[in-house]
């Protein structure tokens, strides 16, 4: 983590639910600020069914790669979807680039869980789509799209449909599609979840390489502890339902990092122990 980056957090276990900490209420300059956000899922009659998130507050500094790490059901995906504006908070607010998120947030790129590309478009059409929607003229789009296809190593597969690609290739396409719009905030919801271990490592390395070119904010949702450590500057560890921020851990491993060698990286062991210890109680709580 870069020195002096603002880092505040309330709503952790053992803290009061509604923090009176003036710092949390003050307007901040962080590009993304989550303020006492709660989410209660209701059943069909409108009765509260599940507390997914409980008064979560956090701030994400510019140019940082952060992870939401937690057991399944801790609301990390819900929080990500709320930042994307496709899920409404029951309480609290989310401010993104100085504006409260009240509708679909078109200022972010989103890499979804699962396979991700639109199945009815070729790889090229998929990567081209965000630019086309943004109204960029075809003359400017084409070289950009070709460049990104090259960057993710998918030359020769441009005209394939997603089902004709392997899981790893489709994920690469999904990354290219998220990065092609050149936005400052990229949200990733367990993007490498369904991949096999080797492909995962390679894609994590690719992601870091591509990210280092621009250093947009990346918010990365995962339940994989090593993945969170290998990729992030800051890890927000979330507790099991109702989701709260349990701990905020800066990752002091220097960049550039090699994910394949991350176990041997400087400072890996202490941060690994810290994360594991924090996660241990949570995993025990979910009974996993």
């Amino acid at each position, binding site marked *: 983590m870069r020195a002096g980056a603002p880092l505040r957090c309330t709503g952790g276990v053992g803290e009061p639910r509604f923090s009176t900490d003036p710092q949390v209420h003050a307007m901040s300059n962080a590009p993304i600020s989550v303020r006492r956000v709660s989410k209660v899922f209701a059943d069909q009659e409108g009765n509260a069914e599940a507390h997914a998130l409980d008064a979560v507050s956090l701030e994400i500094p510019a140019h940082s790669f952060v992870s939401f790490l937690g057991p399944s059901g801790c609301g990390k995906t819900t929080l990500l979807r709320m930042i*994307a*504006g*496709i899920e409404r908070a029951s309480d609290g607010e989310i401010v993104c680039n100085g504006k409260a998120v009240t509708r*679909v*947030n*078109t200022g*972010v*790129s*989103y890499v*979804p869980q*699962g396979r*991700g590309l*639109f*199945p*009815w*478009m*070729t790889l090229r059409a998929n990567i081209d*789509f*965000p630019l086309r*929607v*943004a109204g960029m003229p075809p003359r400017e789009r084409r070289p950009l799209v070709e460049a990104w296809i090259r960057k993710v190593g998918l030359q020769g597969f441009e005209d394939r*449909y*997603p*089902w004709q690609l392997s899981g790893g290739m489709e994920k690469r396409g999904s990354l290219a599609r998220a990065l092609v*719009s050149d936005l400052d905030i990229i949200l990733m919801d367990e993007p490498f979840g369904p991949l096999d271990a080797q492909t995962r490592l390679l894609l994590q390395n690719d992601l870091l390489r591509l990210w280092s070119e621009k250093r947009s904010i990346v918010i990365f949702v995962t339940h994989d502890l090593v993945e969170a450590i290998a990729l992030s500057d800051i890890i927000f560890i979330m507790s099991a339902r109702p989701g709260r921020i349990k701990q905020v851990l800066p990752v002091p491993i220097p960049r550039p990092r090699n994910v394949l060698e991350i176990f041997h990286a400087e400072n890996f062991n202490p941060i690994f122990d810290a994360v594991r210890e924090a996660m241990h109680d949570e995993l025990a709580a979910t009974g996993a």
Partner: protein
Amino acid sequence: MSASVPFRAAASSGWRRRRRVLRLLRPAIPAVVVVLGWELGARYLFDASLVGEPSKIIASALRHAVGPRIWYDCWITLSEILLGYVLGIVVGGALGYVVGISENLARIVEPYVLLLNAIPKVAIAPLLIVFFGIGLASKVAIVTSLVFFLMFYAVFLGLRTIEADFIYQARIMGVTRLGEIRFIILPAIMPNVLVGMKTSAAYAVIGAVIGEFVAAHAGLGYFILDAAGAFNVNDVWVGVIYLMVLLFGMTGLVGMAERRLLRWLPRRKIG
């Protein structure tokens, strides 16, 4: 050994070619057996005037092909089918779409669609004839009433099963309302739409023929009824053959659209 290779290659390629021809002919075997059995049965076992004779049916079909009458009947039936088909697709699809995207509208409209769908359309054909007259309009109405429900449910269910995440993704990319329909929703429901169109084609033919059976001056259904009235079983079959050709033509066109529009669908083999 070097001399034997081309020799063996030549022999095996000849053998392979013969096998390929046999494989191509294999699906025709049941048809040939049935038609041959039918022909022999009609000549030696059954009363040919009741079951018809394939040789005479083919001869009559060819004879009709050069005369104008059957082509006029084809034209009448085809125009009934196509008008009703297109109308049913457009109206059924549009209503299915509107109801499919609006939860509130669905609650009001869907029970009525269910109720109306329970009416056996064939049973009310005489009513439609009385209402719309003996000509084109009544047949179009019958065809539309059949196609409408199939297309309504094709689109309605297509929208129900669409993956919401695709829509969210596109919205995050900043797609407009119209773009969302064009680039996400329409392609996503296209498999359902094309299945609906294929099934509808067969139903459209049935609807037109039923209408012509009830009351008509022309059309292939009328042709068939006319032939049956004259105890000309062979010509009944001729009418059926021409109807089949119409249906093949329609499903062929839908199939072409399908190959063009659904190229992106995974070609999985089951079993």
